[in-house]
């Protein structure tokens, strides 16, 4: 039995501040991916970095930053040198804590041992590898550009380079993936010594090539029950290897949590730089234009939109997002930050969810049950006004 008291809960008391940097380039665009990612834009890379630096400098306020995260796309589509340059400008612009988490996403196909050494030298402390699966037919179905061997090698290289933490991203429930394939993928990444694993159920996202293939009957859609079975397997296997679930899709050895992602889930502030990047500051959410070319062309006026929700909606959002954490909502802290105990505020909704066995309500916290993790959407919707 997990000791949930040791797991992170929401909201955070001292709000951390993070920085997110979006690198929208990929070697190939995966058909299932709906992130802001583009292949074949090599000519934009140079001007993009310049525009990015301009945006960072314009936001420089010298205030503290606890975590930085380079996401994509595939950030390693830029050289460690270029990435290091961006990091330097960030350090000049903000007061980056000495123990700050500096994380980067990478793909097996665009990395070598030298890449990881370079990233470490540039100042990255954490690397997250898009492994997705160790079954060749699954990688093929997903349209990934790497082989299982390359993925294993990349994980080994990252470990050997000496980052504080290495994460493996996995996708489960791909049609054609057997339960055994999935088990092998989980065991395979654990064997490399990673201290963090993210597991995502394959989803057919709107406006992706996959969605249109499924609509035309060219590809099968993933099956909910299959995915639930896979999720159950992960929920047994990963903790047995010492990786505790601390969020619906995230498992880590104690202390190896992604501090940057915790910032999102616990209501922290973050600055977003780059095409399509999102920022959050005191309840104001903003986002940049998403096309990299437009981002370059409009620089430095790259903000596309923003919203500022009324307090009641922000509270609901905080509860919805916070409930993704295995530790759930800390009732006292939630009351402190949002002015009311969630169990009082959403009495009917939460009691109903508890009645359905989706959440557990204790004196201290409201948290998803084992059954509730994979049915979070039901609880989340009920809290929306």
């Amino acid at each position, binding site marked *: 039995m997990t000791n949930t008291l040791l797991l992170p809960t929401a909201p955070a008391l001292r709000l951390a501040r993070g920085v997110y940097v979006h690198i929208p380039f990929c070697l190939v665009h995966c058909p299932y991916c709906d992130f802001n990612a583009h292949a074949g834009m090599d000519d934009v890379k140079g001007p993009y970095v310049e525009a990015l630096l301009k945006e960072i400098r314009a936001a420089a306020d010298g205030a503290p930053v606890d975590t930085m995260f380079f996401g994509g796309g595939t950030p390693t589509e830029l050289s460690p040198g270029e990435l290091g340059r961006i990091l330097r400008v960030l350090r000049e612009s903000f007061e980056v804590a000495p123990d700050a988490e500096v994380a980067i996403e990478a793909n097996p196909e665009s990395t070598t041992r030298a890449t990881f050494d370079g990233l470490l030298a540039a100042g990255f402390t954490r690397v997250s590898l898009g492994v997705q699966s160790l079954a060749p037919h699954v990688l093929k179905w997903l349209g990934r550009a790497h082989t299982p061997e390359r993925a294993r090698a990349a994980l080994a290289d990252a470990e050997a380079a000496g980052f504080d933490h290495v994460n493996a991203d996995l996708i489960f429930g791909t049609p054609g993936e057997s339960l055994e394939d999935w088990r092998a993928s989980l065991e395979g990444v654990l064997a490399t010594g990673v201290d963090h694993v993210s597991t995502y159920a394959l989803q057919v996202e709107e406006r992706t090539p996959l969605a249109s293939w499924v609509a035309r009957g060219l590809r099968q859609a993933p099956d909910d029950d299959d995915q639930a079975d896979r999720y159950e397997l992960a929920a047994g296997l990963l903790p047995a290897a010492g990786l505790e679930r601390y969020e*619906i899709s995230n498992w880590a050895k104690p202390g190896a949590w992604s501090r940057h992602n915790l910032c999102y889930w616990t209501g922290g502030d973050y600055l977003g730089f780059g095409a399509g990047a999102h920022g*959050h500051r005191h309840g104001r*959410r903003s986002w940049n234009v998403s096309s990299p070319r437009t981002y370059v062309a409009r620089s430095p006026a790259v903000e596309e939109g923003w919203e500022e929700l009324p307090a009641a909606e922000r509270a609901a959002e905080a509860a919805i997002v916070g409930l993704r954490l295995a530790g759930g909502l800390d009732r006292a802290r939630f009351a402190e930050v949002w002015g009311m105990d969630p169990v009082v505020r959403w009495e009917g909704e939460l009691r109903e969810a508890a009645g359905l066995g*989706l959440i557990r309500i204790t004196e201290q916290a409201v948290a998803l049950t084992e059954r509730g993790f994979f*049915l979070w*959407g039901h609880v989340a919707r009920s809290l*929306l006004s």
Partner: protein
Amino acid sequence: MKDRSLVRAFSLIAHVDHGKSTLADRILQVCKAVPEREMREQYLDRMDLERERGITIKAQAIRLQYPAKDGKTYELNLIDTPGHVDFSYEVSRSLAACDGVILLVDAAQGIEAQTLANLYLAIEAGLEVIPAVNKIDLPAADPERVSAELSSLIGIDPGSVLRVSGKTGAGVVELLEEVIRRVPSPKGAPEDPTRALIFDSTYDNYRGVVSFVRVLDGELTARQKVKMMATGSLHELEEVGVFAPTMMPVKKLEAGDVGYAIPGVKNVREAKVGDTITDAARPADEPLHGYREPKPMVWAGLYPTDGDQYADLRDALDKLRLNDAAFVYEPETSQALGFGFRCGFLGLLHMDIVRERLEREFDLDLLITVPSVAYEVVRVTGEVISVHNPAEMPDPAAIQEIREPLAAAMIITPKEFLGTLMELCQERRGEMKEMHYLSEDRVEIRYHLPLAEMIVDFFDQLKSRTRGYGSLDYEAIGYRPEDLVKVEILLHGEPVDAFSSIVHKERAYTYGRKMVEKLRELVPRQMFDVAVQASIGSRIIARETIRARRKDVLAKCYGGDITRKRKLLEKQKAGKRRMKQVGSVEIPQEAFMAALRLDDKK
């Protein structure tokens, strides 16, 4: 006063698609009623629905000036009628505004069921019948055979049957000359107190009710004070006019004229179709012989998908009824569907058209339940009630007897399909009454069948089994006791009233099984296991389980794009709000509709 010997009023009647509206086009052209550039095919089919479906739904009246061979110009009042069996009520009303009919028969198809049915209506109304073979230009035309069929049917010389083509115009002038010769000019008395029959009506948003009238005696003028004889209500006519071919005001309508009158009423019920208009100051003693109220054959619940549209639906029904006197409705409630109306229709096509007109012309979004027929139920107390909503069927213990409506069906088919049609009628619990040959290879058979067995897909079956050559006409002829039961469908233990159905005992299991399986497919998984059951009284006859949902999660929730995740959840939630709540089970609108849909062709 005009010379009434120069007036003729007649209808075009025929089986569906035998070319009435096309022939009317040619007549319009001969009379130069429409400028050439405004002419289009089936000019009188004005409704969008009519044009899309290529059928006439509503009878249309029009006044024409025909320069005859005798050098005189005649005023023709022509009514184009629909041919589909569901709209035979329109035909019978049109006939009351006429003195004769042209009976058209397709030269390739020959006599079909509505040819006979409409002919009988004309004979019953005492009208002069001018038979004509149409579409003689068709390569497959066989005017000899069809003339022979007509001659043996009506008892006339086959040589006297006219031959025309509505497409090429061949024979049209000869046909009109025959009309002048044989259709009598209007009888009636111009000097008598006014009597005008309302044979149809429409609703105009600005002017209110527009009544289509035939003046039998006296006259109607604008500003005249009139009285509706059935309701006794008094009005001042705002306008009278004729269709030439669109509404054209005239000073007065005289005895024998067909036209319209605008009584300036907004309330539908004050100007009922079938009522007689008379002069308020000098009323007639007796109203004209009106119409039998049409008897609905098929009943179904009509509900707004958005409960807020209930009042709009009620207004729309009131207005549409002006345009279509044949459907009836009364409020009802369903625990699954909310507030709505139980409506009676003349048939499935009629039902489909009413629904579509309501949706289009009144911008409504509607849900319609499975159609059923009206049953007669004898309670153990001896009381007899009419049940036209299966959900209202009393408890089996309170029922002494259930009687179901019976239909007399007339089918005309080439003889090679006789066997398969008899099989079909057998399967549908039919009883053969009569059979005879219309010609060497065409047979007319008559059956008594439960109406309920006919409304589902009987007609489609008949068409497909005869490769389109068979035709059908039917009418309700009363009730007979049967072994019927009410099958209820339960979701998570709660009966869903909209899915209840009355079926023959021997079919109950099959029906229950089918519904239960259909719902298992259609109802989305809930947060708990849901039992889907079919029952007769307290006995469960079929059961399926919809397993609880195991996944409802947005996988990735980072990158900081929380706005988008929230919007996705909001969208899902909005989708849930549109769901129908049955007990604790939520069913999406579309699934509900699909479950209510009759055809289960996958």
